[in-house]
């Protein structure tokens, strides 16, 4: 307990508290802006983190981290354009809810779920970091491959209602992500000798095009179609306590999924949000409404992606393996002050570890406050004339697409993706599977080919690993279950029919 107090003492300075609030606000801001993510936030604060004290530096970085993961959901809900890839799943239910005028409530669900997810993962980090880190080392490339294949189920879950088109959309996303440099051996693929294309078709410009640009085209196309006037409610509305009834199991499950995936370096918040969303769609009592503006969809996506923030620090601190640029810079900041990551960190520098816990808690609380206050402004955006709003969105989204890599190809990709997205939406192809495909494809291919190199080309060696085998079995069971159920029902009706005949 003394150590905890020591940790608390380290962060209870005005500098650190200010750093948490400013960092979180900046994180929310870059998260909200489509295309931009935490990396831009780091670029801004990097010159300061090199000179400011250790705890304020860590505070500002963790603030950006938590804020940006949450911020993406705001744009996803309000204008159907996920501000960050992590929030792509949030748009699936958040936007339909906002479109029927309940943006205030959608933001309420998203913000509350984010807060709970974030706090849950801090708890995980506090209680089980060394154990979780040790467990994550059971995940070699082979297990990552199995996890990636398991995650592909999301494509099928999200495509319900237009299954074949959804699967095709997912396959296209997976293929498009392979264009450019072969991630394993560095050869060029499908670039047709274009140097510009060797940079590959990256995720963020594609999301900007598929969502923001196509939304603009769709709305222009519909401007001759009379629409029902929606009364957009402004502000921030906490979901009533009664509404949580029956959703707590889902919330807990989503938090667990997010915390677990987060502890595996390199998988990320987008994957965890999709896995959690697809699990909600498979098992939630409200699953029939998911995809049409059901709170369950928002809860699943937002609690899972924010639950990644705390647990992503597990491999960062306990193993010295940062999963993304934010944690990498944070690790660098700690190391400069003479703190060596590794299992012994939790023994020798427990005060620092506790200080980080408290910073995370403060950042999550700040995130909630900023979200609740900011909602007043965000929801008002919906009352801006549509033409000006869409213009603003398109300009900022293209700017964001350019800003990620400073690469002119990305603007072309965003434009092309905008047209593809428009055509897909007009012809009934869902867009989300394409994004999921693009997220998962590099992970699956990398893991598959690394595994094959490690096993010297043998597929059978995959099945000798218990975790991999278990993941494959679960994947097969989930995929085959509807078929089995259908066969059982068919057999039953057949029997009933025969019974009647006899």
């Amino acid at each position, binding site marked *: 307990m003394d150590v905890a107090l020591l940790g608390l003492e380290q962060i209870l300075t005005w500098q650190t508290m200010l750093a948490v609030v400013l960092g979180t606000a900046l994180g929310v801001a870059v998260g909200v802006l489509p295309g931009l993510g935490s990396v831009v936030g780091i670029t801004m604060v990097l010159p300061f983190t090199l000179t400011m004290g250790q705890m304020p530096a860590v505070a500002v970085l963790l603030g950006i981290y938590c804020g940006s993961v949450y911020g993406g959901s705001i744009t996803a809900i309000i204008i159907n354009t996920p501000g960050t890839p992590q929030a792509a799943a949030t748009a699936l239910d958040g936007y339909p809810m906002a479109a029927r005028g309940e943006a205030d409530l959608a933001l309420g669900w998203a913000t509350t779920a984010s807060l709970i997810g974030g706090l849950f993962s801090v708890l995980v980090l506090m209680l089980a970091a060394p154990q979780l880190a040790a467990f994550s080392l059971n995940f070699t490339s082979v297990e990552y491959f199995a996890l990636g294949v398991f995650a592909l189920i999301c494509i099928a879950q999200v495509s319900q209602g237009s299954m074949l088109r959804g699967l095709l959309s997912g396959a296209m996303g997976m293929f498009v992500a392979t264009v450019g440099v072969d991630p394993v051996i560095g050869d060029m693929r499908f670039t047709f000798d274009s140097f510009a294309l060797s940079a590959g078709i990256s995720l963020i410009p594609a999301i900007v095009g598929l969502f923001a640009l196509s939304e603009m085209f769709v709305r222009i196309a519909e401007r001759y179609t009379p629409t029902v006037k929606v009364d957009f409610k402004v502000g921030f509305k906490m979901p009533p306590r009664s509404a949580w009834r029956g959703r707590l199991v889902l919330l807990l499950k989503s938090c667990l999924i997010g915390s677990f995936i987060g502890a595996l370096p390199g998988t990320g918040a987008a994957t965890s949000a999709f896995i959690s969303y697809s699990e909600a769609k498979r098992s939630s009592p409200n699953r029939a409404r998911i995809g049409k503006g059901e709170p369950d969809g928002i809860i699943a996506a937002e609690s899972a992606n924010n639950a990644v923030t705390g647990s992503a620090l597990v491999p960062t601190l306990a*193993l010295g393996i940062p999963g993304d640029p934010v944690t990498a810079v944070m690790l660098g900041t700690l190391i400069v002050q003479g703190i060596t990551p590794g299992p012994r960190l939790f023994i020798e520098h427990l005060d620092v570890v506790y200080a980080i816990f408290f910073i995370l808690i403060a950042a999550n609380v700040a995130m909630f406050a900023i979200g609740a206050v900011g909602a007043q402004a965000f929801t008002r955006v919906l009352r801006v004339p549509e033409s000006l709003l869409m213009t603003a969105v398109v300009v900022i989204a293209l700017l964001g697409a350019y800003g990620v890599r400073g690469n002119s190809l990305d603007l072309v990709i965003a434009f092309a993706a905008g047209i593809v997205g428009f055509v897909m939406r007009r012809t009934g192809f869902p867009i989300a599977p394409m994004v999921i495909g693009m997220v998962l494809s590099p992970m699956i291919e990398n893991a598959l080919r690394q595994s094959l190199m490690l096993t010297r080309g043998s597929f059978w060696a995959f099945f000798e690993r218990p975790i991999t085998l278990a993941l494959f079995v679960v994947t097969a069971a989930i995929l085959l279950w509807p078929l089995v159920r259908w066969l059982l029902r068919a057999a039953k009706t057949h029997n009933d029919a025969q019974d009647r005949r006899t």
Partner: protein
Amino acid sequence: MNFRIFVAAAVSGLAVLGLVQPANAFPDRPVTMVVPFSAGGGTDITARTLAGPMAEALGSELLVKNTAGAGGTIGTAEVAAARTVGYTIGMMPVGPMTTQPHLRKLPYSPESFDYICLAYSAPSSIVVRKDSPFNSLADMVDYAKANPGKLNFGVQAIGSIPHVAGLGLVDATGIDIAFIPFKGSAPTFKAMLDGSVDMFVAHISFLTQNADQVKSIAMLSDEPVSTAPDLPTAKQQGVPLNFPIWGGLVAPKGIPAEARDTLESACEKGMNSKAFGDRMADLRMPVTFMKGSDFETFVQAEFARNAKLLAKAGLSN
């Protein structure tokens, strides 16, 4: 309205916008430093640390622009193709400069640049897990000779300097090991911790930062490293391997000599600043400055050496 005041106001307004350019000496406007990787990485942090004091020496703003993609080649090509006025320079690391051009067709080569200075050069090291039975290069080589094809060598990317260093090791010792590529140093490190790979080549600051979990079996430098003098080099163990991880400032070929000289002296002043020195000390990296002309010779030597090793491994295009 008084006409003269109007003209004065208009001219000063335009001057602020930069339309009326006074013919000052270089630099009279912001210089852009292209970093071919994303913000937050090692190259980026070094570039930003240098940019502050260097801008002070230049007396003009120095903006860092990240142009990422395709292993750093997109940003490098951007610098090679920039206007030759000296306002676009690049912080170019060893990979895009000396290994990538051998792997595939690129719109640039070391001949496309004017050289300003070497900005950093850190020794690399072959690292293994702390609990590994290998304590020296000989331990590992003996094991590899007794068990050909058994050991896995992790690489951060095919054709990267750590990979080329591994190829150099194979070339010098004749051992048979498998190279397993990962995506960057964090996944490679993880693969070593989970037992997938037995060793990889890392930057010296990685070694000191993860001292709890890894150890070096050979520093890949000719001279003992000043910041880690007690670690034996590969040369001391009878295998001369020298693979520093470096980066330096370049400009598109053909910038005015005056601009190049100004940039070179600003680079030197920047590197001698306290801010830069402190940061390098934090990373356990020696401050290694090299003049533009020396840097050019150095790059050419590295380019030729890496060409040979990559060709031998069948990787060149």
